[in-house]
């Protein structure tokens, strides 16, 4: 697996920290998933409250790398300012850059995304852009200095899986040396396995685990599916074909007419 800005991760799973039934289940799900990265955000704090510190303590205790996001930002300025605030609080140059362009689909605004990425790279950030599978946008992001690309599988929280396998395969083929992460839209472990079989380096998910009836069991299921998919990819799968090809040898078959 390639490094992410020089960091070698032992796990191909990046897991979100939102929507769990409780902090204890969040922690148990992380342990079951063996995820190497936790995504986090920044939100308004109330005076006298220590909610942020309490949550930050839980995340630190997970013992994984932290990937702050700019979730909810709709403009370059919002995203850049949020990234700077996140770098100060979380003490990392990593930023999951989200610039949302459409409120129903939460589709990235590719124009603002590229502009924000360029600014943040110049400011010393290591940008993980949440993008679409569009090849031209991906080219522009790499030109802007992104060394990781994170195309969506489907709209955030939809659980639809990999809705454009052709586009995702094309992206993998176009950028063989850039770490690629499927970010958003996965609902089932089989979809994560398919992403691995396609040659993706990692998946980032949240809702599929956190909103499952049993988040800990689902975290374990995703971990195993990702391992299976990555093993299959490394094992060089057979090429599909249109016509049948008997697997049992014809030679030695009895003549019983």
């Amino acid at each position: 697996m390639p490094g992410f800005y020089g960091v070698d991760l032992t796990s191909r799973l990046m897991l979100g920290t939102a929507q769990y039934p409780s902090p204890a289940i969040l922690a148990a799900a992380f342990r079951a998933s063996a995820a190497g990265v936790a995504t986090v955000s920044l939100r308004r704090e109330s005076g006298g409250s220590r909610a942020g510190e309490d949550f930050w303590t839980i995340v630190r205790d997970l013992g994984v790398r932290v990937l702050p996001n700019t979730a909810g930002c709709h403009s370059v300025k919002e995203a850049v300012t949020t990234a700077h605030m996140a770098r100060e609080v979380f003490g990392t140059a990593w930023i999951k850059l989200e610039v949302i362009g459409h409120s129903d689909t939460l589709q990235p605004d590719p124009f603002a995304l590229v502009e924000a990425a360029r600014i943040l790279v110049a400011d010393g950030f290591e940008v993980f852009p949440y993008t679409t599978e569009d090849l031209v946008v991906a080219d522009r992001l790499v030109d802007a200095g992104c060394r990781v690309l994170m195309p969506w599988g489907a709209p955030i929280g939809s659980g639809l899986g990999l809705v454009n396998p052709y586009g995702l395969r094309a992206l993998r083929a176009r950028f063989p040396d850039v770490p690629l992460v499927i970010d958003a839209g996965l609902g089932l472990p089989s979809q994560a396995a398919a992403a691995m079989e396609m040659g993706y380096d990692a998946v980032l998910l949240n809702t599929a685990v956190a909103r499952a009836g049993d988040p800990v069991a689902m975290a374990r299921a995703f971990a195993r599916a990702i391992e299976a998919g990555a093993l299959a990819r490394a094992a060089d799968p057979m090429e599909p074909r249109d016509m049948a090809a008997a697997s049992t040898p014809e030679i030695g078959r009895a003549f019983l007419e």
Partner: protein
Amino acid sequence: MKIVLNGEPREVRAPSLHEALSELGFGGAAVATAVNGSFVPAPSRVATPLAEGDRVEVLAPRQGG
């Protein structure tokens, strides 16, 4: 003077962002700040004056995907 803290009107006496954070109960908290949409790094808070009507954002770690 009246400022807008995280979208809510508040009255503060402190003349700087640093002192205002203490006055508003954020002293020592792990927060990031912005004034009127611009990031103010922690070391710059002492030298950042507040004026009537300023919009102050105080953000802290939260769950995210």
